């Protein structure tokens, strides 16, 4: 059975350690296996590693037991050597995954099927970081001179960008970047033989074209379905839609520490006033956005993290019904004439990102905040956040580790070293920072969770984020094809079944 699969974008490369990016990971997963994988419900399950535990003598060592009898697609056997090599490769300068494995000091093959991973300190949650770590064949890599991941700075192409040798369920047949990638089932796969024996993957960036291709029967499975088309697709014979929550929250954030904003007409920083932040929270009508803009395809919440991420609580999630009158009063109390500010928003990154921003502009307008919207492509939007060139912005954040620490590291911690790269609002709280650093090495998970709770309390109190919702994913498939929504939007074709 062939499955023709369309989504909005293509993998950027086939080098397994070069790009930490959604579509790239999704495609690679079909060719390369990871040590540990994540279920559709978010729990970890064995893959190339059959088990993982902390070394009884040294809390900073993880012991991985590998699966036996696995072969690479070129026929060579999979051993601990390959895992150690893959570690070297993923830790290489040019790897795009170094930050994920930042605490790893090195890996050591104990025997053919046992590997010790030495951490810089206790890292109780480290296995969560293994779900996107693909294992390559050492001999193949050496033979083809790809011991280091693709490095574009060097200005030369790498064999691994277009050639693969994994232990995954599919072998690469042909690839035309951004046009189509064809894969066929690998008969030496260690797991169950997939029902879909051939996968044709086609990126189709235009939403209307993508849906048209499904409706005209040119593709079987469309991954990125615009919310407005779900209803029509559901009614169409021969097509069905499956939905599920995505591991991604959408929220607004703002610069609350600068003296003065870049784009405001008032002389101080409006966001530094707790009243203003409260007013903004009060006027945000999440339910309306959910009903109209998202057509039900979202879970409104106040907490900037999906429910299945460690650290999420029911009460964080709760939000008050909008109260425009009270919000207006709050704004008036600080700025009798209101104030103006620019909102930066991507228009090609999240489901209906621009429409959400637009709706929020209206809601803010109602309480005297005159927001001008600067909606642009993601390639222009994200640098603003990184370079601290925005006062007020929309961001979506996924948590591949399923742990709040990931959010804290990137979004809450003061920007320094490898911390705070996406802390575009310049939030800085020394106490919080200390706690964030503390949880990195805590082994007592309960105590750790308590600290996480404390951090969240502070962050929620300070209203660092104005969360909108948790995105729902929708996949549209042709009838007779069964597929589950994957929380990280990384569907797997080998688990697809046919009626």
């Amino acid at each position, binding site marked *: 059975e062939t499955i023709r699969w369309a989504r909005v974008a293509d993998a950027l490369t086939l080098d397994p350690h070069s790009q930490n990016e959604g579509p790239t990971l999704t495609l690679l997963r079909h060719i390369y296996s990871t040590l540990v994988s994540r279920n559709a419900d978010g729990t970890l399950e064995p893959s190339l590693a059959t088990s993982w535990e902390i070394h009884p003598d040294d809390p900073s060592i993880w012991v991985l037991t590998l699966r036996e009898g696995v072969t690479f697609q070129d026929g060579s056997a999979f051993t601990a050597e390959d895992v150690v090599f893959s570690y070297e490769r993923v830790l290489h300068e040019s790897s795009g995954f170094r930050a994920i494995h930042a605490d790893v000091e090195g890996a050591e093959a104990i025997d053919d099927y046992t590997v010790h991973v030495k951490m810089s300190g206790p890292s109780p949650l480290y296995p969560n970081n293994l779900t996107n770590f693909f294992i390559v064949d050492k001999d193949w890599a050496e033979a083809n001179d790809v011991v280091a991941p693709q490095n574009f700075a060097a200005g030369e192409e790498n064999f691994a960008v277009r050639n693969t040798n994994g232990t995954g369920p599919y072998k690469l047949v042909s690839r035309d970047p951004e046009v189509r990638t064809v894969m066929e089932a690998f008969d030496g796969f260690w797991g169950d033989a997939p029902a879909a024996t051939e996968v044709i993957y086609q990126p189709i960036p235009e939403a209307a074209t993508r849906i048209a291709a499904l409706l005209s029967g040119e593709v079987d499975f469309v991954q990125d379905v615009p919310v*407005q088309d779900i209803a029509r697709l559901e009614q169409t014979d021969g097509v069905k839609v499956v939905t599920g929550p995505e591991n991604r929250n959408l929220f607004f954030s703002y610069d609350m520490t600068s003296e003065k904003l870049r784009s405001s007409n008032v002389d101080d920083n409006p966001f530094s006033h707790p009243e203003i932040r409260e007013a903004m929270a009060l006027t945000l009508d999440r339910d309306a956005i959910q009903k109209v803009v998202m057509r039900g395809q979202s879970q409104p919440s106040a907490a900037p993290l999906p429910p299945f991420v460690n650290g999420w609580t029911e009460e964080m999630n709760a939000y008050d019904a909008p109260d425009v009158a009270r919000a207006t009063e709050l704004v008036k109390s600080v700025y009798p004439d209101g104030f103006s500010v620019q909102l930066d928003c991507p228009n090609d990154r999240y489901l209906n990102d621009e429409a959400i921003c637009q709706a929020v502009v209206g809601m803010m307008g109602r309480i005297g905040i005159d927001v001008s919207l600067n*909606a642009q492509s993601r390639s222009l939007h994200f640098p603003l956040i990184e370079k601290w060139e925005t006062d007020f912005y929309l961001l979506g954040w996924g948590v591949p580790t399923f742990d709040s620490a990931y959010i804290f590291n990137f979004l809450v911690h003061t920007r320094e070293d490898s911390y705070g790269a996406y802390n575009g609002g310049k939030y800085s709280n020394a106490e919080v920072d200390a706690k964030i650093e503390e949880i990195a090495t805590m082994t007592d998970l309960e105590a750790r969770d308590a600290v996480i709770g404390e951090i969240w309390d502070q962050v929620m109190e300070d209203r660092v984020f104005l969360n909108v919702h948790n995105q729902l994913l929708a996949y549209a498939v042709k009838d007779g094809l069964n597929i589950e929504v994957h929380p990280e939007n990384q569907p797997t074709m080998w688990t697809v079944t046919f009626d």
Partner: protein
Amino acid sequence: MTPETQAPQTKAPGRLYRAWDSDLAYAFRTAPVAIVATLVVLVVVFCSVFAPLIAPMNPYNPAALNLMNGFTPPMEPNAFTGEVFLLGADGQGRDMLSTIMYGTRTSLFVGAMAVLFAMVMGISIGLFAGWRGGWVDSALMRIADVQLAFPAILIALLVFGIARGFIPDGLRDQLAIWVLIVAIGLSDWVQFARVVRGASMVEKNKEYVQAAQVIGAHPLKIMFRHILPNVMGPVLVIATISLALAIIAEATLSFLGVGVPPTQPSLGTLIRVGQGFLISGEWWILLFPAVTLLALALSVNLLGDWLRDALNPRLR
């Protein structure tokens, strides 16, 4: 000396009558297509210019919108708010009729200003090149060639990119429209320059120009007072057709994601947004703006076409 009294000595008719009686006016009166096109353009221009006075609501004021009105079909009450909209409401709860009026206003403004910009630039360069001739002319026309190698869209992307580097935050919204105008205008001046250059090279050899030179009239005066009025015919034709092109270019640019801010949609933005709802069944979000754009651009094109024929005496 016998005074010649051949010219009919009837009282000189008034200005208005002369305009009405002119060949152009006559050609116009007898061309139903031109009349209909003009009517359409007039109606559209009227509705957009006076949109703030006649539109049911101001869709550019975000505070006035109720998101819950989103996707209300034409003439049907909204499920939540019960409001009714003649042409329906879009995803942000904006009344389509008002939005189209305001959108046309933006589109027309962008188009007209872009054409004006291109015209001023093209005419100046064209007149200068045609008048000076020689290497100045060659150089300017080579630049025009290079410019032609880049289609409007690429130029617009260029201008946008550069502008983004210079325009301070907070002003982007207000300035976006001007950036757009410059972007479209810049990609359009070549036509004007070429036509004006060609025509002024013809005109400058005409004897009335020599007559002005004999009395030592200033070159600038000759260029702008003598030559310019005589090359305005083709310029007018190009300007009309350029207007249609500019309106469409604006639409295309917003399809590619560079355009006016979505909170102040133009017709193009409306269509770009609307085409996402073609499959889902909210046809009114696409159809009405598209029909408006078509009617406007088609009428302007038809007018330009007609004007071209009417101003070309040999075609009659």
